[in-house]
Structure formats: C-alpha cells, structure tokens
C-alpha cells in the first residue's frame, strides 16, 4: 500500500477558455507558488498523469480529445475542473458549439471556482485531489487484493486500441 499522495502528476488540458485560468495554472508552478514542493509535476503526458486538470469549457471539437486523454490515464485518476468555465461552461455556456463544463464529458471530482481561478485556490484544489487520489489508490489496492488473479470488469469507457465500435460512437457525438 504505497503513499501515492506525495507524487501527484498533472495533465493540464486547456479547453474552450479565455486562457486566464491557463495562465493561472502555470503561475501555480512558478517560484512564487511552487507547486513542486508537493511533488506536483506538470507532465503533459496522459500515460504518466494522475490528475487531469481541465481549464475552460468543453465544446463539440474538444470533447473527444478530453475523453481520449482521460481514457489514456491509468487508474487511479482524479479530474479537477479549474475555473468557472470548466465548472459550468461560464460565460460561454450558451454558445452554439458548447457542451458545457468539464463534467459534460468526463466525471469531475473537484471543482475549483473563480474567474480566473486564483493560484491559491488551484493549489487547494490540487491538494484536495491528492487526498482523493490516495483514497482511490487504496481502494484500487484493496480491490486488487480481494480479486487476485481475476480479470477486471471491462472499463465502460474506451480503453483498448481495438474498441472501434466505441470509437464510432464517440465520433458520432462529435459530429452531432
């Protein structure tokens, strides 16, 4: 049972936003706030990430991208929506191409409000996510222990390279 909470790696995705929250997320990593003291690394690679941090809302075009990135992340994983747009769609909510906040596409665990979200609150969100990450990791281990050797139930989302049927469906939503 490892202490995973000391090493949360971020994948930051900037959706349909004004880039304000985007800049604030980067600010969180600068010397003034220095998120790395909590072990936070901004990896940019879903295969290595633990926390998916989404800024900005979700539109028709980026929904499949966000979904794919989320699917590529190994379990356990946590999703943090940063800023009003990511939480609810914000000022863009009623635009013709918008689907809404991040939770319209992937399950969001932590909501960080603000327009733009301040680094302090982003940091707070990360730390909340880290606690959840640890909890999920423990559950994951517990599950593995109890179901040793059994195949896991199939992930409802697309997670294999061959699941083309799912893919069609996904493309279908993108076209809709």
């Amino acid at each position, binding site marked *: 049972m*490892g*202490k*995973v909470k*000391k*090493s949360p*790696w971020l994948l930051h995705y900037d959706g349909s936003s004004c880039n304000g929250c985007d800049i604030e997320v980067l600010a969180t990593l600068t*010397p003034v706030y*220095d998120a*790395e*003291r*909590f*072990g936070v*690394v*901004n*990896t*940019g*690679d*879903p*295969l*290595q990430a*633990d926390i998916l941090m989404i800024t900005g809302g979700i539109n028709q075009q980026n929904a499949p991208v966000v979904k794919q990135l989320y699917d*590529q992340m*190994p*379990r*356990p994983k946590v999703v943090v929506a940063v800023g009003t747009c990511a939480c609810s769609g914000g000022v863009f909510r009623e635009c013709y191409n918008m689907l809404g906040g991040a939770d319209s596409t992937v399950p969001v665990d932590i909501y960080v409000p603000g327009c733009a979200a301040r680094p302090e609150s982003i940091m707070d969100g990360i730390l909340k996510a880290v606690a959840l990450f640890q909890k999920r*990791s423990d559950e*994951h*281990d517990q599950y593995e222990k109890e179901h040793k050797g059994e195949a896991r139930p199939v992930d409802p989302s697309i997670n294999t390279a061959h699941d083309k049927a799912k893919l069609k469906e996904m493309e279908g939503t993108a076209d809709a």
Partner: protein
Amino acid sequence: MDHTIYYVIGAILYIVGAPFLGCLMDGAERKLSARMQGRIGPPILQPWYDFVKLLNKQVVTVDRAQFFILLSYLVLMIMSGAMFFSGNDLLMTFFVLSTTGTFLYFAAIVPSSPYSSMAASRELIQEVCYEPAVLLLSVGFYLATGTFNARAVFSQHTSLILFMPGFLASYLFAMIIKLRLSPFDVSTSHHAHQELVQGVTTEMGARNLAIFKMAEWYEMVFLYGVVMVFILNSSPLSILAAVLVDLAMFFCFVLIDNTNARVKWENMLGMSWTVTGLCSGVNLLILMMIR
C-alpha cells in the same frame, strides 16, 4: 588477485545500492535545481515517492512488447554498471553500455507513436554523439595504464587526471548528453511541458516508467563512478577527493542544465564531435608520444 573480494563487494554494492544512491542524486538534483530558480523544491526523496506511486498505479501499456524491452534495458544497464564496478574489461563494458542504449531506442520506437519515435531517433543521434568520447576514454585508460582491465586502472599510484585531462573533458561533455541535461536534452528531459511531450518516455506509463527511472538511476551512478576513476590513487584520501570532484561536477551539471536552452541536434552533433576530436584527440596524441 587478492583484491577480488573487494571487486565482488563493489559489484554487489552497486547492484543493491545504486538505485538508492541514484534516487537520492536525482532528488538532490531537483532540489538544487529548484533552489537555483528560487523555489523551495520537492523533498529530496521525491523521486522515491514518484517511483512507489508509479508501481502502485494500474498497469498500462501502449504496446506489450515495450515492457520486455524495457526490462532488458534495465538488466543490461545493471550489468554494464556491475561489469565496471567489478573491474572488468573497460572497452567491453562501454560496448555493452552502447548496446544498452540500443534497447532504450527499441523500447521507444516499438509503439510507433509520433512523439516517442521522434525522440527515439534523437536518442540514437545522442548515442552517435557520445559514443566516440566514451570509446576514446577507454583507449585513453589503455594508453595511460597499459591495460583495458578496470582493476589495474583503479589501482594506479598517481591520479589519472594528470595524464588524461582531455579525455576527462570530452567525457564530461558526453555525460551531459548521456544524462539528457540541457542544452543536450534533445531526446527527453526532466522538465515538463514541452514540444517533445515526454520524449522517449512518452509512451511509458506506470510500471514501464518506473523501470525506466530505475535504469536511469543505475546509469547515473555508473557515469559518476567513471569520473571518480580519474581521481583515485594509492592514497585513501583520494577517495574523498574523488567524491568532492563528483559533487562539484554534479553542481556544475545542474547549473548548466538551468542556464541553457536546448540546441538543435545538428549543433549537438557538431559540438560533441568537435570537443571529442579536439580534447581526446590531442590528449591521445600526447599520450602516444610520451609512451
């Protein structure tokens, strides 16, 4: 060879201890780097926390073949390090080291992913850059001591740096490339958020990345160990001196890493071959003449 036992202990110590030492060095590097940038930085043990976390995550892979290639990479890396610390033939050790690099290339190219493949090719170019320096280094040892046998090289009466400063210079240059530090971090880098994504490790997640990290630690200890050989002599105090030199080099590398931007691979190739040709070449010429 009554010292055989020391070499066996050396190899065992390396196999068991190198990951921990390498992990600490990795942590120290990140901490030092952060301090240079005016940050507090992560705890020294951060790489260890990362490692444990990676092992605890769900096992994911992009291509099943990657795992076994990476495992081979790790084992061969351990082997080349152990060959060195157990006092084997130096030239052979460095040849095995280059084969080890080939396995990393394979691991990165096998998933056929755009970022990973590009970085793999660059990794191969890096190999072309540092291989001459590393091979010439063993030639230098041979000229200075008359043997490729590492045991004889380790037990010199005078420090080898007196005979081969040029080789040391080009080796240190090669080390920057081998450790993938700026400005020669063309294949991957320890810093996030860049056009390469994660370079050769892009398609390595969870357990695969943990294996890669571990191999990196072994490599680090091995490479710094080679620097120590230049300093060691018959006096026990030289061990202290060697450690100090290593620490100084460590500091310099972090400084270079923090103050340089990545160069194009063409420049890297040109620079490294020039440095190798000049420093090692001239030193080689001098050694051949005084022999």
